[in-house]
């Protein structure tokens, strides 16, 4: 299993790292930071919310780096844990499940699934703020 997983894993980590280290992410974050501040959302959590529906292993990798930097019991560590735990890898599941039976028209499934993720992410921010804010 490890040999199956490894190439994909490297590619995903490489993509995420290139994106964060090159400074693109910081640039985007600096643009939206004022909005996030209003809702008491730590800006470092934003990439997790974006990556989560795309890739489970990549978001786990990002959560890993949050834990390493701030510790799992910090506010951002708790928020990251809940965010990672409350939704699933939507894009991956949809492409895998529909691909396996040859469905070409997926109708509103992508929209509805991403909407569910959004509900989960918003709920996790509110709940973590209520519990430990």
């Amino acid at each position, binding site marked *: 299993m*490890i040999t199956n*997983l490894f190439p994909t*894993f*490297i*590619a*995903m*980590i*490489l*993509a995420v*790292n*290139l*994106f964060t*280290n*090159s*400074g*693109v992410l910081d640039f985007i974050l600096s643009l939206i930071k004022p909005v996030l501040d209003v809702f008491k959302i730590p800006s470092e959590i934003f990439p997790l919310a974006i990556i989560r529906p795309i890739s*489970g292993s990549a978001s*786990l*990798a990002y959560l890993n780096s949050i*834990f*390493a930097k701030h*510790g*799992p*019991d910090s506010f951002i*560590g*708790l928020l990251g*844990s*809940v965010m*990672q*735990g*409350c*939704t*699933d*890898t939507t*894009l*991956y*599941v*949809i492409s*895998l*499940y*529909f691909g396996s*039976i040859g*469905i*070409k*028209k*997926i*109708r*509103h*499934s992508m*929209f*509805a*699934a991403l*909407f*569910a993720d959004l*509900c*989960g992410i918003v*709920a*996790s921010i509110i*709940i*973590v703020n209520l519990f430990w804010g």
Partner: protein
Amino acid sequence: MVNIIWIILIAIGILYGILTNNLETINTTIVDSTKISLEMLFKIFPVLALWMGITKIAEVSGLLKKLSNKLSPLLTKFFPEIPVGHESLSLIASNMIANIFGLGSAATPFGLKAMSSLQKLNKNKKVASRSMITFLVINTSGLTLIPTTIISLRMMYGSLEPTKIVMACIISTFFATLGGIVIDKLLARRYKN
């Protein structure tokens, strides 16, 4: 489709590095990424192997089957198109039970079988049926009661209370699933008209 996202991320990263004259960082990132991924894989692998073993026990001992038998009758409410007693209901139930216990790797085979079973009921083989969409929306919205991977990751980083987040996860997941089901039912109605 998912692969395109990775390529876009890599391309944007490299392009931005070139534009900001930061090729040094790009180079070290490319080299370091392999090392980081290998280290991380070694960290995750033992925990993953443990949970996969536990799932296997739950499956072989018949626990998964028993729980999914209990769940199937409830599911007919969410999947009105599936005839009562159809095999796809119990496959969907098994997939959900595995997801609820945070056993993603056990859930996937059940999920794929459920999809091909739903395809047998589907009239137009190229277009997703209503039941398929409802199933996927519920599936991707989380459904996890015990987020095993996150608890293990928290343990690895020396959390004082690794399971502290369970309740918050359950509540958030509930809202995600609820939001998904509501929007799915609303949109499905619109498609019909």
